[in-house]
């Protein structure tokens, strides 16, 4: 009961902050709401018992990536805020169509997986049984990353490396 209440209150806050990110006129305010949104998601992880993910969420997203966003937004929008709602190339029909497609997809997933949900949980618990008795959150994440998900993990790191090299290349070419 208490947990359900906490979940819905928190979820309402997160969605509210998410809406404010796109509703705020001032880009810097948008970024601040994004930070609050990420902090809310971190609290959600704590409620779910995933403390490690919560802390990483704060460290990487709220404390790292969004600081860079803020940095860029402050440098770009020093002179004036962008003229909102005057984009001549706006394609309202396309946007509504895409949103409807995503909504249909989400509903379809909800409808088709509600019966299959128990299967999913048993699969997860079977995977958990395979691993040795790991007490901490951190150990579990580490174990999963370096056994079952080793290849995706390494591929993701290669992707980040490629992005980094690309960024450096662009910066050097500008000189």
């Amino acid at each position, binding site marked *: 009961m208490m947990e359900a209440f906490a979940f819905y209150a928190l979820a309402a806050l997160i969605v509210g902050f998410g809406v404010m990110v796109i509703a705020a006129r*001032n880009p810097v*305010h948008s970024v601040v709401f994004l930070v609050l949104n990420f*902090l809310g998601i971190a609290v959600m992880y704590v409620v779910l018992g995933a*403390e*490690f993910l919560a*802390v990483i969420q704060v*460290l990487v997203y709220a*404390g790292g990536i969004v600081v860079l966003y803020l940095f860029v937004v402050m440098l770009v929008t020093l002179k004036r805020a962008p003229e909102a709602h005057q984009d001549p190339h706006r394609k309202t029909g396309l946007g509504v169509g895409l949103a409807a497609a995503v909504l249909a997809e989400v509903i379809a997933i909800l409808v088709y997986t509600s019966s299959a949900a128990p299967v999913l949980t048993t699969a997860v618990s079977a995977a958990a049984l395979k691993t040795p008795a790991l007490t901490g959150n951190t150990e579990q994440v580490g174990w999963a990353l370096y056994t079952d998900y080793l290849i995706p993990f390494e591929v993701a790191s290669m992707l980040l490396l490629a992005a980094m090299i690309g960024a450096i290349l662009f910066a050097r070419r500008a000189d």
Partner: protein
Amino acid sequence: MSETWILPLVQIAVVLNAILISVTYIVLLERKVIAWVQSRLGPMRVGPWGTLQPIADVLKLMLKEDITPIRVDRPLFTLAPIMSLVPALITFAVIPFGGHVTLFGHDVPLFIADVNIGLLYIVSVTSIGIYGIILAGYASNSKYPLLAGLRASAQLISYEVAVTMMLVSIVVTSGTLSMVGIGEAQRTSGVWFAFIQPVALVVLFIGGLAETNRSPFDLAEAEQELTGGFHTEYSGMRFALFFLAEYANMIVVSGVMVTLFFGGWLQPFPNIAALSFLGFVPGWIWFLVKVFFFLYLFIWIRATLPRYRYDQLMRLGWKVLIPVALVNLAVTAVVKVLR
């Protein structure tokens, strides 16, 4: 039931008040030490040897007019000092001031929370504190605070990489992320981690100076260039919040350094029988003595070293500290596996 709630609340109240009071006296200590370094006397008039100066300062700051300049971004201007101070204060939740003591027949731990991600918690919460400075710089709508905010954010992002990587070395050495666990690991290893990880000690202390915006890395509040930096437009109690945050962060960095490298609340060399007589001093006093040493070091460095230039600061961070941190981590991991 009531005990599970009351004990943490009492702990939080005691720790917060102790931090705020010690901050005011660290300011006095800083003024005194710098004065002595420069052959002056420092504050002398309020109370004997100026010992009541902090109280006068706090009264002054609270009674001063709180000015909000007209063209500032009001919500962010109000939010910035709060976002600066709160992360600094909540970090103390995981810093162990001592082991367990018995008080009025209860077993009282001298730390508020022993979570198994303590060190990561400290890193992530301190990374939130930067928003206070950046937003203050932006919201002030004034060129010097803005420049200071940009400098501060670039500086923190750069040094955070080296600091976090060095912390991983310590985690590999101790095998735990819990602050209490890291302290206990130094009891079992029999020697402080300062002797096992001397490189990490130096890099983390430099990183700590940079992340608290202290001299010689205080470019975000360089008076000569930026007329005070990100808090130029702030006055009264809101300015005091920034001030509190800076000194609370100094205590955090000192506490973390002590816990990671100098055995926290443990007496020196707890496993050597000849030194076991040191056990009559309670653990929390050892902790406070060690923290005081680091705070003194902060002030000492401020009185001694000139400020870095901005490009020198960046070069030190990216071209020296990060490679050193990477090599240190690799060596630590290899040694750990070979053992």
